[in-house]
């Protein structure tokens, strides 16, 4: 209602704000440039052979030369990650909704969700590969790693409903479905999105782990398989190139999910609001 007066120092603060933002981008870029420079320098000065440690130029050259093979593998891994992520999202949210409807279901099954989470996926993968077709096993691995953060975050969110708002729904005779749809799910949304953001990166990890396990069993064409294969052939530059692609894929997945989360929450949730409002 009341218009706040603009503080006289505002323009200067804007400039310092801009400086701070620029610095936040420039500083890590500078660190990367220095690291790459040092890496290149060390390789050249010591005359290290590419099969021991390739220089950044060699890695980049491999990335360009082998783009055909690497990009195909990248697509395979990304597709697996996506399938695992979707399965984790759907499975995690659905399970959380089920848990929320009945305390007994929650008490009965939650410990097993924890067990599945704390058992290292690298140890489960070989077993899954015995019982499941390879592609399915890889997706299941991605799902196992990814679903738990979605489950636990969604559960937390569904239980964080404002007590008075819940009372209001009760007063107006809301059905279970109405309470879920108009109250619990919207209230849990920020938590769900947080869970999904974690699950995105974890699905990639799950896919890579499963591919490596499967790769040693003889087949596959994802990026992780390329890394293992290049290792056997002492094609170290290609290992680095594939690793680079995996890192970039992880960053992009995280960035995309963070963006989606921001777009959905920007009108109302504290996490998506600027600090001035």
């Amino acid at each position, binding site marked *: 209602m009341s218009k706040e007066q603009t503080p006289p120092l505002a323009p200067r603060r804007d400039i310092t704000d801009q400086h701070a933002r620029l610095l936040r981008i420039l500083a890590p870029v500078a660190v990367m440039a220095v690291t790459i420079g040092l890496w290149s320098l060390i390789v050249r000065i010591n005359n290290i052979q590419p099969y021991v440690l390739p220089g950044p130029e060699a890695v980049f050259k491999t990335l360009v030369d082998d783009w055909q093979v690497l990009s195909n593998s990248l697509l395979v891994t990304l597709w697996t990650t996506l399938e695992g992520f979707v399965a984790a999202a759907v499975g995690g949210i659905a399970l959380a909704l089920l848990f929320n409807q009945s305390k007994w279901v929650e008490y009965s099954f939650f410990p097993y969700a924890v067990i599945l989470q704390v058992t290292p996926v690298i140890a489960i993968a070989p077993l899954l590969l015995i019982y499941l077709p390879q592609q399915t096993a890889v997706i299941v691995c991605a799902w196992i790693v990814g679903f738990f953060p979605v489950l636990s975050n969604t559960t937390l969110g569904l239980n964080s409903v404002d007590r008075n708002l819940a009372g*209001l729904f009760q007063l107006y005779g809301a059905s279970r479905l109405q309470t879920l749809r108009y109250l619990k799910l919207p*209230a849990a949304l920020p938590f769900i999105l947080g869970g999904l953001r974690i699950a995105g990166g974890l699905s990639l990890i799950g896919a890579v782990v499963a591919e490596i396990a499967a790769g040693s069993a003889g087949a596959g064409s994802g990026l992780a398989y390329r890394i293992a294969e290049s290792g056997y052939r002492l094609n170290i530059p290609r290992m680095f190139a594939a690793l680079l692609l995996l890192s970039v894929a992880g960053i992009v997945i995280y960035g995309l999910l963070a963006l989606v989360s921001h777009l959905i929450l920007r009108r109302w949730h504290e996490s998506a609001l600027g600090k001035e409002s």
Partner: protein
Amino acid sequence: MVDPASVSDCGANHAGPLVSLRGVTKVYDNGVAALGPLDLDVRRGEFVSLLGPSGCGKSTALRLIAGLNAPTSGSVQVAHRDSEARVGHSIGFVFQEPTLMPWASVRENVRLPLKLGRMPTAESDTRIAGALAQVGLADFADAFPRELSGGMKMRVSLARALVTDPDILLMDEPFAALDEITRFRLNNDLLTLWRDLRKTVIFVTHSVFESVYLSQRVIVMTARPGRIAAEFRVDAAEPRGEEFRTSAEYAGYCRSVSRALTPLHQGQPIR
């Protein structure tokens, strides 16, 4: 949910009280006796305040009347208007906090009771516009709660309670968290609404001044478990306004109500 006590609805009975509590007690699961036994009758169109120290069970009484909790013993009766295919509810509740859904616009927040009653959108739009106009927020339908001041959020909360056209308005220290200037304005607006709409209002507060200013009847409650310690009828000339707030008559009422409240605090640490 099956309780020895009963919460019953009976048909429209214009002669009897609208809300009637008989020997109502509430003991919470942790063994705390919060209320009663309490007997209370509220007539149709009356403005009644429940006044007492923190934790004296005033809010509990309100939640029992709303049917949000069941009494441990005794009966709570609320006379309903004949259910002529009315969407919504005959009780509107305003909490201490605005209790708005942060993810929904003002319009959608006010729509909530109607939506839960499955009223068609076109029909509810008209009623929402009406309710928002009543609280002076007609231009803010598309705003989000976080964009509003504390007083405006409370107005939205009030509009949401009014949108079903309830018989009874239950208000649980609604203005306690607001600054004095905003509180005075909302007090005046609430009195205007009460005069125009002729709702029955049960208003919980811990402010002597607010209770005397607003109500026709002030009920002073004891500390836990809450019982009625004293009852005052405030027969000031209507309509009340700022002149009443500064009058000697008002000061007199406040003094006697305060006096009834004072012994309750003796022997207790001041909170």
